[in-house]
């Protein structure tokens, strides 16, 4: 398909800019101006709409079909959340208004959304206080580790190291490192959980804390979670909960009751806000009481008269991780979702998510053995080891075979600790029929792997492009369609 730069005609306009009702009298010296406007495409509105409609048809979303991308929780994104986020009372609200004299009274609705979310997320996680500032999960991780560092600085602790299990998402070690810590990796045991004995061997006074995903990336609940927390606390370390997999336990168990000190949540996973093709997300961070004073500036408080205010006087705070209150539009969407599910709906989320994942595992395990032979939580990690060994069909080939059968593939080759991993997370918004269709596709692929492996190596054949040459992309590096700079 053509690039947008290859379409259109000189002089064509998509939007008529409003006529000016003031004189032209520019307050800019000629040397401050560019010689000509940027070389953007020249298109009609219809050209632009057709271009993006064509692009959208080359894309696959949750609205298309089952999207079992493990650890990403690709559940349905309610349309009503989009509608409400577009209400002018929210979409047109300037973030600096609360900083004006009496400005808090101008934004009571928005502050209430932030406050109510804080209260609900405390209840869901068992934490004492939240910030909505982090703009994605990894941003929440960084915020959480900055809080960890502030705690240790406040106590004059000399801490250098953050422990992270080998099955963790790559964001965990990256976040700890950019916050200034060394990272040490804790191995998993044969049961897929953290090796408690090895963890105890690694414990020193230099350990600032541990980052943990629970259920972990194998979809398994860390059965020793309480003892792990006690071990870390014994050296005055803090235990960090990566909320990527909260969907498995929401309403069933709370990180605060398990002994965690800091939690981040991915609203775009657990609470149904859209993933947007790679964002925007939101990664609120919650902490136990002793860490509340380190949360970012500002926090929303409720006054005795029932009105809401922003509190800026927080001398021990880590400061600002976002310019204002985080991705408010995303927090608002998650708020709508939580209001609609309520107490009973939320408990049902985890149940159906876990039933769905175990059902897929039960129906596929004879062909694709699980990485660990246990019941799973909200996602299961199966392997393509049989197909790789017997027919030279790897996880990536199965992924491409699924595309030809109308499905988005699961996460493949993660966690890194499992060979030929396929991490499958159906989510609770999928009905049994959708799962049965997925099972049928996976079984069909296993049959084709034996009968006609070459066909699977050639997959996908139903898409606008086949497998793309990633080596060439990284070697030739065509990263922009840019005319030569004419600026000297």
């Amino acid at each position, binding site marked *: 398909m053509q690039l947008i730069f290859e379409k259109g005609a000189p002089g064509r306009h998509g939007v008529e800019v409003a006529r*000016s009702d003031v004189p032209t009298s520019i307050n800019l010296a000629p040397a401050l101006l560019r010689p000509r406007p940027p070389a953007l495409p020249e298109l009609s509105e219809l050209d632009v709409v057709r271009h993006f409609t064509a692009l959208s048809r080359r894309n696959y979303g949750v609205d298309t079909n089952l999207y079992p991308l493990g650890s990403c929780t690709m559940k349905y994104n309610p349309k009503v959340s989009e509608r409400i986020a577009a209400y002018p009372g929210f*979409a047109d609200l300037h973030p600096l208004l609360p900083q004006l004299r009496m400005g808090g009274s101008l934004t009571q609705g928005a502050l209430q959304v932030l406050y109510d979310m804080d209260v609900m997320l405390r209840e869901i996680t068992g934490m004492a206080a939240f910030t909505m500032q982090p703009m994605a999960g990894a941003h929440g991780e960084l915020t959480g580790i900055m809080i960890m560092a502030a705690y240790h600085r406040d106590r004059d602790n000399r801490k250098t190291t953050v422990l992270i299990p080998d099955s963790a998402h790559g964001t965990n070690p990256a976040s700890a490192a950019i916050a200034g810590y060394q*990272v040490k990796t804790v191995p998993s045991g044969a049961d897929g959980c953290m090796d408690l004995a090895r963890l105890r061997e690694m414990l020193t006074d230099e350990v600032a804390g541990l980052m943990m995903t629970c259920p972990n990336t194998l979809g398994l609940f860390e059965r020793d979670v309480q003892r792990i927390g006690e071990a870390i606390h014994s050296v005055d370390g803090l235990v960090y909960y990566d909320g990527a997999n909260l969907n498995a336990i929401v309403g069933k168990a709370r990180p605060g009751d398990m002994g965690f000190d800091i939690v981040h949540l991915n609203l775009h996973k657990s609470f149904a806000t859209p993933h947007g093709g*790679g964002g925007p997300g939101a990664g609120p961070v919650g902490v136990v009481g002793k860490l509340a004073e380190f949360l970012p500036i500002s926090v929303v408080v409720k006054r005795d008269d029932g009105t809401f205010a922003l509190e800026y006087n927080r001398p021990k705070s880590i400061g600002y991780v976002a310019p204002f209150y985080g991705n408010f539009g995303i927090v608002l969407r998650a708020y709508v979702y939580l209001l609609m599910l309520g107490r009973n709906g939320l408990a049902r989320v985890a*149940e159906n998510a876990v039933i769905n994942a175990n059902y897929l595992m039960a129906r596929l395990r004879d062909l694709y053995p699980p990485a660990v032979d246990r019941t799973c939580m909200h996602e299961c990690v199966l392997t393509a080891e049989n197909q790789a060994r017997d027919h030279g069909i790897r996880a990536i080939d199965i992924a491409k075979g699924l595309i030809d059968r109308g499905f988005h593939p699961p996460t493949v080759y993660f966690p890194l600790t499992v060979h030929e991993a396929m991490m499958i997370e159906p989510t609770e918004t999928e009905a*049994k029929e959708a799962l049965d269709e997925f099972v049928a596709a996976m079984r069909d692929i296993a049959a084709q792997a034996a009968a006609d492996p070459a066909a699977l190596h050639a997959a996908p054949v139903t898409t606008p492009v086949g497998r793309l040459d990633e080596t060439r992309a990284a070697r030739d590096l065509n990263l922009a369609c840019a005319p030569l700079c004419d600026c000297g």
Partner: protein
Amino acid sequence: MPFIASTDEQRREMLRAIGLSLDDLFADIPAGCRCTGLNLPDGLSEQEVRQRLTEVAGRNSVDLTLFLGGGFYDHFVPAAVQAITSRGEFYTAYTPYQPEVSQGTLQAIYEYQSMICRLTDLEVANASLYDGGTAIYEAMMMAMRVTQRSRVVVDDSVNPIYRVMLESYTRNLHLDLITTPNRGGHVNRDAVAAALAEPTAAVIVQDPNFFGCAEDFAELAKGVHAQGALLIVSCYPLALGILKSPGAMGADIAVGEGQSLGIPLSFGGPYLGFMAARREHLRKMPGRIVGETVDGQGRRGYVLTLQAREQHIKRERATSNICTNEALCALTAAAYLDLLGPDGLRQTAQLCADKASYAYQRLTAIPGVRPHFRAKWFFNEFVLDLPRDAADVVGDLIHRGFAAGFPLSRYYPDMENCLLLAVTEKRTKQEIGMLAEALEAVLCN
């Protein structure tokens, strides 16, 4: 239950196929951490939640006439922008890990990267960062990787909201963050030159700066480069419809807040951090990058590339921890720029500048109201000296229906009577006139 698909009967069927009970599936959770029910309200229907949120939204004052900017602007957004970004195929997808079913997102990001390069006159751009503030932070970290130096100079005419973010992010890191005081609303060249006497990774400036003043950094860039440092320019992308680009000034990295490109104010986010750089620094750049390639039949396609920089490969040695970024906001910006085209962007920027000039003339004609800086080159924002505390004046004007600007004393304590005013293409001559009358009236009282 809303959004939960399987029926009770289907749950039973699935549990039979699994061969276990529901309790068995949750048996790994230790008894001590089970939760028997959350203290949350009962769920609401769609009708109820829309009624409630309509009422909540009504407690936000969006009927004020906005002359408030500070890096976040009330620009006009064509209806087609939201029609495009509302397509479920875009907004319900995730990061394009499977390129064959993600060509829509991937090509759109490639086109977005291309447009950011064309706006900034730099050679490479990434797929987006969270916002304008984290983009400056990421650029600063990138410059330290490029130069292997740990000292950074930032002028205090850079948005103070972002400068406090830099202070927070660098608190645990081994680096020196030096702030130079502006001189008359412009970068203080002597202070920067003095700061550059020691090995420095980067100098960070903004154009137009927080006070709205536009500046040519070409000479500054030469001085920065002579000391082996990089020049980072934070810019206002809509202004690049008429303003000299960071690339043309010699910037090594351009970053900024993309909210002005079709993204609603939305009380602070989601917004769009953009970043472009000279090609030689590409491998030190953070974030996702899309590249063009071909499939086995030679058909053109797009993939995420240079992933060896990223956290899911490099883990603690990655260039950044970023994973989820702001892809849908990048799509928004691309659609906005396509709809405006070169002339539309130029005209919109010109309109902002013209209306700001008109407002400047009207307001400085009021007795006691004077321009704060002698330097007169500004884009769509300027600083006025008022005869009394600007925060009080703004408070008075709210009662007359105006968010009349941002009082600067919050971030610049010696600028107590200074008001920062922004004028976009949406403000009419009549609104500007009414603001002038209202300001004159409150100053007389």
